[in-house]
């Protein structure tokens, strides 16, 4: 027996739009089943995970804070994924962006208010991520090295570099030997948007990134080239796009946005560098990118869905004593459901007996 995928002749755009919602519903049911196996009430879990965060204004702000870096990184990943390039190293680009972006804020600790520090920090963050992202692209173009392996392994290099910096040269001398840098001055931090809560201006940057990405992909020749390069590399060449240049550009934009997300995290909510600043945002963003179907608007929604699972997971750990790993499990289930829903919208499944049709 084997399974066969047969293309469906007519798929309406409504069906395509509804597919992720079905996926979320099925993922919820499967998640509920797991909670039940753990001996807790799925309804109580559902309430803690999803209802409370969505009805509490403070929690809503928290969701936006968590969604902010995911939106920025995932919109960046779209440039690579649409071009069939596999940037798995956004986590590393994020960290390098945070390091680059912290140079000026750290150099201005203890100084008078200087308005240009924050914009320069953000730009340097993006630049750092872009340079770091260009490494796998360059190696791929020049030597044919797999960008998947290089970008992934560079994550560890970035993590250990940050670790070295905060324990060594950049450690706060007045920090009781804790591995952290000094706190940034307030002029080097992103302003808060609400008087109460933690919502900061990063969400505006994130939504701006999504809007610009939508325009670039759908209206500009460059975005057209990215799409064509992903669909048919020979057609991209025929169209006049240089594959090598496209590869490097896509990786630099992707890395640049990951780096921007890194410095937004640091200047938006952490306020200093420490050994762990991300906790896997760069990897989670891959789920967000696919949850949003590599579409900027979808990504904004996808980022909020993932932020909800993270926030709800923390709440469930506290009130229901459910393990935090459950959140990761649920994110995995969600990704599988979304991919399956997309596949089943495009194809129908047929079970065939015997080895051949």
């Amino acid at each position, binding site marked *: 027996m084997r399974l066969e995928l047969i293309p469906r002749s007519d798929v309406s755009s409504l069906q395509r739009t509804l597919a992720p919602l079905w996926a979320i519903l099925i993922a919820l049911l499967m998640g509920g089943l797991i909670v039940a196996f753990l001996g807790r009430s799925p309804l109580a879990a559902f309430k803690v995970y999803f209802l409370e965060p969505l009805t509490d204004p403070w929690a809503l702000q928290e969701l936006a804070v968590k969604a902010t870096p995911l939106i920025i990184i995932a919109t960046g990943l779209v440039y690579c994924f649409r071009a069939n390039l596999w940037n798995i190293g956004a986590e590393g680009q994020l960290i390098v962006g945070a390091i680059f972006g912290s140079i000026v804020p750290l150099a201005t600790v203890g100084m008078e208010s200087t308005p240009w520090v924050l914009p320069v920090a953000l730009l340097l963050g993006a630049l750092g991520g872009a340079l770091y992202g260009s490494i796998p692209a360059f190696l791929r173009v020049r030597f044919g090295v797999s960008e998947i392996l290089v970008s992934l392994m560079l994550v560890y290099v970035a993590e250990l570099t940050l670790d070295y910096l905060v324990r060594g040269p950049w450690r706060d001398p007045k920090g009781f030997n804790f591995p952290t840098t000094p706190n940034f001055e307030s002029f080097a931090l992103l302003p808060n948007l609400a008087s109460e809560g933690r919502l900061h201006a990063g969400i505006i940057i994130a939504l701006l990134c999504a809007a610009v990405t939508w325009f670039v992909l759908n209206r500009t*020749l460059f975005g057209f080239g990215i799409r064509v390069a992903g669909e*048919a590399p020979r*057609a991209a060449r025929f169209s006049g796009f240089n594959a090598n240049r496209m590869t490097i550009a896509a990786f630099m934009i992707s890395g640049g946005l990951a780096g921007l997300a890194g410095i937004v995290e640091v200047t938006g909510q952490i306020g200093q560098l420490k050994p762990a600043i991300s906790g896997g945002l760069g990897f989670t963003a891959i789920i967000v990118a696919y949850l949003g179907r590599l579409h900027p608007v979808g990504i904004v929604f996808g980022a909020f869905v993932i932020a909800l699972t993270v926030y709800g997971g923390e709440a469930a750990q506290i009130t229901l004593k459910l393990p935090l790993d459950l959140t990761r499990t649920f994110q995995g289930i969600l990704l599988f459901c979304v991919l399956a829903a997309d596949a089943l919208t495009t194809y129908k499944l047929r079970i065939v007996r015997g080895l051949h*049709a």
Partner: protein
Amino acid sequence: MAEVEGANAPLCVLDGIVKRFGDLTANDHISLSLRAGEIHALLGENGAGKSTLVKILDGLLAPDEGRILWQGRPITLASPEDAATLGIGMVFQHFSLFDNLTVAENIAVAMPAGVGLRVLNKRIMELGERYGLALDPKREVWTLSAGERQRIEIVRALLREPKLLILDEPTSVLTPQEADTLFATLEELARQGCALLYISHKLEEVTRLCDRATILRGGRVVAMCNPREETPQKIASLMVGTAIPPLHDRDNRPADVRLSLRRLNAAPADLHGIALKDVSLDVRGGEILGLAGVAGNGQSELFEILSGERAAPQRGMVLIDGEECGLDGIDTRRRKGAAFLPEERNGHAAVGALSLPNNVVLSRHATSDIAPRNVIAFDRARALSDAIIAKFDVRTPSPLAEAGKLSGGNLQKFVVGREIIGNPRVLVIDNPTWGVDAGAAVLIRQALIDLAAAGTAVLMISQDLDEIFAIADRIAVIHHGAVTAPRNVRTVAREEIGLMMTGGQGASHAA
């Protein structure tokens, strides 16, 4: 034909075969009988249902209705292995060979386990002698010509001792001489009692070779005939369903040289690519220069360098309107007034997942007003796309349909129209009517004739000699990366061209 024993009882009967794919009925109650010792032609345009029927006979597809009788008994074919065990052999149009393995190794992988290479070598030589299929079992496949590669496929099928051999467009990659050798082999096979199902759209060879013909159109059998008693024109009109309009010729007034190659030498881009050797060529405004040659002799390498998809080694090796542009990219060359159309529609000349207007953007963003300042103006792309659809009679489900939803012929009309509607001064086009229906082919060829009449220099790379002789003014031949001096098509003999395609005497022990 009648002298074969049991010729009256058919070997294989297809009875009311129906195969549907969604809404499409690819085979609609097809009935057909095959007798031992006959060469039976299966004719039809692309999409007529030939491939589907053949896949059913090879056990790759199961029919939705109808039955297959083998020597009078109903059978089901669950896999190609079933079909082979029964005695049905298949020679596909596209070779499935490992380039880096030897002839014998390629054959061994398709044989049941336990047949040693030494035994196999002997049997390959025996078969070669018996049927005129000369092959050296120890040669690596990548060193062989297309004709020799095809012989591997045939030998591979013959080693299973088939009673029915199916050949899908076997001459599409062969020179005229190689085709003649193949026909002799097939006639010998038929004489020894094998039934042959011969699929082709080259009607001249069908009228020469085949005893009976079944003609499909739109998934149905529309006629059965004895091809030896019909003219190719009559069979063609049966295939298409309507009479095919003749081409209108033109006054030929060649003007200045518009496209030149000057001593172009280029190393191959990859391991099995072809090096271009000292290619010099002039194409004048107002003429169509046909470049003949067996596939894989450097045509795609030449196209890449002409179009600028790959840069030439030196600036002066390619000239458009007298300007050196060997190092320019494809868009720069387009702005100089050149247009290009590669052979492969899907994934090269067009992107199946993109809409038709987006496919206009693909090759015209540099030479039209659809992408001012690198921002795409979709209304303009749409307007240009609609103009192409109207002018070149493109049948599409909708003006915004994805290119992949169009039939091969209609997509080809669209991409040809896309290049021609910009009135290029130079057009380089690779196999303009490859795999399109006869109606579309006539429209495309007429469009090329009209374009040349308006003063454009057209370089047409084609593997179809009939096409070159029908519309070109001069013909050159590419072989192993070298191009011969062009000849006038009205004075050159076909046999001479055929000989050049194999590199003259001695270049191949095939001819």
